[in-house]
């Protein structure tokens, strides 16, 4: 999704929060957002969100798609695809349609996936379509214990 983009490429991103910038308050936008700095407040965009490995977001996040490599302390709601890279640290509940978690990523919270879509896909594929719903994951406390 974002792999071909560079942080300094502003052409596709409506907003780029660099590593030397501190943002406080509720950020909401329509286009793509790249965060490499610190945000204390809710982040919401109708476009894609990329959170860099040094970024830190303290509040809830919502976007169409997201690639997270940094730290998010808050709930995440993603309309389509969520990707957590090996350096990602998420402390909060996640709600998304599809998810990809790399080895080394920390996800500490409840993960809920779009049940309607999963059922529809199950119907098409037969019994073995989607084996497990991440909606019935471990609780956040359990997950944190495992990583601590």
């Amino acid at each position, binding site marked *: 999704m974002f792999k071909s983009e560079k942080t*300094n490429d*502003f*052409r596709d*991103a*409506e*907003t*780029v*929060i*660099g*590593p*030397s*910038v*501190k*943002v*406080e*308050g*509720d*950020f*909401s936008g329509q*286009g793509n957002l790249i965060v*490499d*700095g610190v945000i204390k*407040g809710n982040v919401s965009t109708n476009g894609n969100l990329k959170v860099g490995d040094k970024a830190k977001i303290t509040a809830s996040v919502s976007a169409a798609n997201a690639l997270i490599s940094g730290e998010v302390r808050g709930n995440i709601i993603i309309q389509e695809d969520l990707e957590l890279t090996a350096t990602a640290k998420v402390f909060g509940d996640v709600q998304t349609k599809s998810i990809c978690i790399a080895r080394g990523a920390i996800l500490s919270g409840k993960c809920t996936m779009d049940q309607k879509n999963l059922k529809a896909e199950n119907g098409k594929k037969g019994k073995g379509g989607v084996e497990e719903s991440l909606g019935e994951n471990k609780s956040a406390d359990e997950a944190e214990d495992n990583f601590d």
Partner: protein
Amino acid sequence: MHIYIFDQYLNQKKYERIVAKIETRLTDLGLNGKNCHVGPLKSLRSIVVEELRNTPKTIVAVGNNGTLNQVINSIGESDAVVGIIPVGGNNSIAESFGIKDEDQACNVLSARLMEKIDLGKINNQYFLSNARISNKETILEIKGKYTVEPTGPGQVEVINLNTKNNNTSNPNDGQLEIFITVTKKGMITNEIDRSFIQTDRAIINNLLHENFIIDDLIEIKTPVEIGVSKNKLKVIVGKERRF
């Protein structure tokens, strides 16, 4: 009718030939109008205000970025079309309009290709290109929703029309682009961190009371309220314009 406003610095002897050449060329193209020369007793603003009473079609700034800035701040709510004939240095705005020199400018005026563009507004002062301030102790409040604070030395630049080659801003979109650059000292070379925000309004304050610089010319005291006037200005542009 065209009103040509020649900036004060063009009264210097070294510009005599260029001014004469422009006047001849305009006559050749049938674009001759009223030539007004700014002088110590006649300011650019007073000339524009006086000439606007006769409802001229086109006001042409002959000079540089500063001349153009003064013209756009003098025409007020008038719907006069603005053109530029660049003479001398500091003419990056004319270049982004696709006008490289005075000869090309006369041809562009003759072709009369018009574009409506946005104007940035800082307090009550319009700007075409950019406004900048040092980011030391500078805080930006964007749309009253969130604040942005740079954490190191550098610059905050608010851009309506990008006059550099890397064209990242569109002067027709009703938005201003805010670039925040922070310079970090490295072992061999300095690193520059960049942030970029699009907005149509912001309040920028500098706790050290440094001034905002508009179009590399005018200084304005902080705090400032920044906005954008969409499609405010009709300008004559060349085919090679950058937007």
